[in-house]
């Protein structure tokens, strides 16, 4: 909940009209696909943006997952209880769909000594460089490290939320962030 609230502060994000969404949800539940299309049009950018970053800017995969997210949203619309904004519910569903990609991955190791060694020497990369360089570097991170970095540094989630939702200890989330930043520093430093 809080994570979504934080992420709403992301640049370029505009809160949709909540009352309109509520009416569109009700119409969708009655089988009105045109209403659901309006919900799709209003929210696809935010959902797709989050998914795209989580899958390392793999546009094809992100579009597949975005489709999956909206199909699931349609199928599970009644589980939206109007306690939060529809945009929040949908955003979390989209993030969830992308995080499912991480299930069972072998790079789910906890804090490795070599990772900490690699990341040692500073908290943040010295210079991020151009946006394109930064996006490429983030995309090349190992999936779990990338997920933690994106959720924390880009989407504005807290370590407690990330740890809870990625099924890791808070310390592991911090270590993964440290690891991700260390890898980025090495990559960006090498290019500079």
């Amino acid at each position, binding site marked *: 909940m809080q994570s979504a609230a934080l992420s709403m502060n992301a640049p370029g994000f505009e809160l949709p009209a909540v009352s309109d969404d509520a009416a569109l949800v009700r119409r969708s539940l009655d089988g009105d696909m045109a209403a659901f299309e309006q919900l799709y049009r209003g929210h696809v950018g935010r959902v797709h943006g989050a998914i795209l970053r989580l899958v390392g800017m793999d546009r094809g995969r992100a579009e597949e997952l975005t489709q999956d997210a909206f199909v699931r949203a349609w199928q599970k619309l009644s589980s939206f209880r109007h306690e939060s904004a529809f945009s929040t519910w949908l955003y979390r569903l989209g993030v*969830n769909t992308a995080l499912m990609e991480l299930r069972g991955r072998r790079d789910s190791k906890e804090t490795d000594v070599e990772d900490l060694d690699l990341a040692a020497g500073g908290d943040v990369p010295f210079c991020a460089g151009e946006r394109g360089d930064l996006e490429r570097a983030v995309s090349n991170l190992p999936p779990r490290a990338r997920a933690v970095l994106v959720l924390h540094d880009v989407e504005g989630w807290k370590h407690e939320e990330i740890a809870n939702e990625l099924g890791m200890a808070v310390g592991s989330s911090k270590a993964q962030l440290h690891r991700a930043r260390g890898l980025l520093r090495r990559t960006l430093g090498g290019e500079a």
Partner: protein
Amino acid sequence: MNHEFEWRNQMRKLGGPVEPAHELWPDIAARIAGAPAQSASRRRIAPWLALAATLAVAVGAGVIVYRGPGHATPDASTQASTQTPVAPPATPAEEPQRTALDWAVPSDPALLASAQNLDNASAQLQGALEQRPDAVFLVGLLNRTNAQRLRLMRKSPYAG
């Protein structure tokens, strides 16, 4: 200067909405056609979610004490499928989704029950996710369950 502040500022600029390069709605519409939005009468999650969570924790506690000979671990991620099937909401009682780890059955009988319990927990969690797709914490539970399953396979011989 404050590198942390500058860094966070730069990273936040990577955020925000991104429109898909292709029009996705026609495919979405085709997939949901004939599958009405789920009716409110099917909101039954709490009992079996609690069961799944309990199972995941209980099984995990039992699994990690095992110390067996090390073996190469299959890359389960290559088996994973995230495709969402077009299942009409009116057919909830289908057979449980297979997990990415279902095929990796330990040959050691002492571990077989734990492996099956983990697979059951994983299947139930996936079922719970179907009911509450926005509940991201369920992915955490699922990750934990599958991580325990992987750990079990790394430490045990398994049938080829």
